[in-house]
């Protein structure tokens, strides 16, 4: 089921200087530059995931930093899906999000050392787009709340982030078959929800038409 929606974005994190697995051998031995290359490859995916879970661009950036600080701390425990470490990073992100408030407080001093001046300010057009994206994400996040958490995690990872069921299984710590069945249920619930919303809109429109 998920393969139908799968977007081969992970392939876009393709290797220019060796596989993740090769790089991670250096990371495991404390090579910061190798870790920087891992950040280059996967930071955008983790940021996107954090944004889709929080609907807040600034928070998502801080959480991305925390995920990579945690990944460095746990680098000896890395798990690979094929040659990619990305699924494991999603797993860390999942736990950081679950413990979000405490994670942010824990890394407060580290985040405070981020030189905000290095980030160029948004141009007006970009700022408008950013606000629109956050509003859209908040709307979507509100509507998918009807989906139970475990199914929603599969929806976000597979449908929104483009992971395969095997990759999502690594992130979530469940068998791939479990991911597939949860994803199927999530899609069914979402379709029903959307159909219900469309039906209500139709009835509302019809009702409005009758009164005018």
């Amino acid at each position, binding site marked *: 089921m998920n393969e139908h929606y799968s977007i081969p974005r992970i392939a876009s994190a393709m290797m220019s200087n060796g596989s993740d697995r090769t790089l991670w051998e250096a990371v495991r031995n404390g090579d910061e530059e190798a870790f920087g290359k891992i950040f280059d490859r996967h930071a955008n995916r983790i940021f996107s995931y954090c944004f889709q879970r929080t609907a807040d661009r600034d928070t998502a950036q801080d959480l991305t930093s925390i995920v990579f600080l945690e990944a*460095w701390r746990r680098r000896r425990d890395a798990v690979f899906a094929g040659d990619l470490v990305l699924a*494991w990073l999603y797993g860390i992100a999942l*736990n950081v999000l*679950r413990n979000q408030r*405490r994670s942010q407080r824990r890394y407060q001093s580290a985040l405070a050392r981020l030189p905000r001046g290095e980030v160029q300010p948004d141009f007006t057009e970009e700022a408008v787009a950013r606000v629109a994206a956050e509003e*859209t994400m908040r709307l979507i996040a509100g*509507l998918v709340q009807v*989906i139970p958490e475990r199914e929603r995690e599969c929806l976000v990872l597979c*449908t929104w982030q483009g992971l395969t069921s095997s990759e999502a299984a690594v992130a979530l*710590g469940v068998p791939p078959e479990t991911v597939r069945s949860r994803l199927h249920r999530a899609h069914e619930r979402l379709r029903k929800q959307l159909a219900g919303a469309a039906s209500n809109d139709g009835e509302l429109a019809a009702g409005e038409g009758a009164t005018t």
Partner: protein
Amino acid sequence: MNDKFFSPPDLELSPSEHAARRGHLLREIRRAAYRSGGGKNVLRWRRRRLTLVAAAVLAMAVTASAIGVGVSAILEARALHRQIAERPLGQPVQVASGAGWSLVAWQSNEGLCLDLVVPGNGATACGIPVVGAATPANSYAATSPQHEVGYVLASGQSGQHDLAVGGVASADVRRVMLTLSDGQQIEAEVFDAPSGFPGSVHFFFADVPTSAPPGGSTESPLRSIDAYDESGRLLEHFGINE
């Protein structure tokens, strides 16, 4: 409109954001390494020393054979991590463990810290405001409302632990019941603190099996934690997502 739900906004970091975050990340890592005494050689030495500490902890543990997750790895990580986040005030101690999981605790300048480790993953929380946790004065935990229980959640990557919950409870707590977001109740296993551990607390752990029905509509898979004393009296109903 429906497409939005299957393909929501997919943002990327701007080049300047990416560069700033990357630089910050590497500086934090190096800062930790250098402040802990020098370059890689010092860290390597520190690992050896910490591994010896871990070995001593393991030797003292009665349930040494039950230890499933490498404590030495946690201790090694802690040496590097200590300059990034809170400042430890004591050595991390494995306070409970089982098949494929380990709960490690230590005191920090922010209050009690818990590290729940499951295969390939884990989660950490610091400054947990629990009654009897020997919390340093003026720490985050000391200045927060006190509770009978505190917890941390982690997903594993072995298929063994879909969701693991580890926590700390006051000395009076003898029974901990977790209520999941779908209403299902799971009793956590409660452990005495190892002798010599600062304060007077218990620890608990629960494994939410993969066969459990999916949760409800709330963000956290946990709805609440109920803490009971020896006589079965409810000491605290800790609401999480209600």
